[in-house]
């Protein structure tokens, strides 16, 4: 058993016609993980929704380092959040929350 679990932080852009609630967003991703990889797969992801900013439509999700490909595939497969059709786009992936935020702000400055 490793001493410390390696994690990955994913910044996700949410695109939807309606208003998106934090819980709905989390369950949309969670349901896709369950559909694609089952309960065994979902148990390996250690998935958490760290924050969601409805103004920027930007969410930060945490998962285990090993499950990153599974989580990314599941995020891409989201087509519906709540009752609205939606799409999620992975913006950035980083090893720490601090570096993710730094990279995000650098990207915003560039744009």
């Amino acid at each position: 058993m490793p001493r410390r679990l390696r994690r990955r932080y994913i910044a996700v852009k949410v695109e939807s016609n309606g208003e998106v609630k934090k819980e709905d967003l989390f369950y949309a991703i969670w349901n896709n993980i369950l559909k694609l990889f089952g309960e065994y797969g979902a148990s390996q992801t250690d998935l958490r929704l760290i924050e969601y900013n409805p103004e920027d439509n930007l969410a930060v999700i945490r998962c285990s380092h090993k499950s990153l490909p599974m989580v990314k595939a599941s995020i891409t497969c989201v087509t519906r959040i709540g009752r609205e059709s939606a799409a999620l786009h992975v913006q950035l992936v980083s090893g720490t929350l601090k570096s993710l935020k730094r990279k995000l702000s650098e990207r915003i400055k560039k744009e």
Partner: protein
Amino acid sequence: MKFFIDLHLCPNLESQKETELMIRRSAELGYKAVGVPLPIKNHKDLAKKISKICDEAGLDFISRIDLEPSNAKELLRNLRFLRRKVEIISVKCMSKSVARQAAKDRRVDILFFSPLDVRKRFFDSAEAELASETNASLEIDMAPLLYLQGHRRIRLISKLREEVYIAKKHDVPIIISSGACELKLLRKPGDLASLGYLFGLDPNDAEKALSENPREIIERNRKKLSPNYVAPGIYVIRRGKDCPDG
């Protein structure tokens, strides 16, 4: 930054507004070139229109025709008529005879199979062997993975895993395209590549399937369509006054 190409963007060509929106969105998502399937009739006029929209969006437009012949004879007739008119010819193989004929014909660039009916996906070892000799590529659309649910998606993923294994074994280039017919099915190139994990395509191969593989086909065909092309290996390098005196 990589040169990502979505070779199979399928907007409703009857609605110019929708076509424009989808092409602009593709540019925003990070694609540098898009291929839009044109109808066989009036493909020239539509190609001009879409090319203009792509220029405005800063994208390279790739003209493409999707053939869906009912038999091998029809396929040969269409190829004879259309090959020199568009940059990419893809064949949707709905029967085994068409699939085999398409795989052994050098004029076919892309083999494409029905995502909805897994029994009509005829990409087996024999097909792959023929395709590897003629340099035809296998195209995988990602949109069905997003909109299909339940056992239909399970069967598709399982079939794609088998096809990717066969394609790798026989060195058949794989192309990943969006196959999106509406805005909500468009994804970033990186996101499409991450879906490759579902059917055993590693990230490097998936990236290659979105950039290098389609680019190779386009460059090869643009060379062939240029007025300087004579035959395989023979090109006009100088003409008229450029030629040194005998």
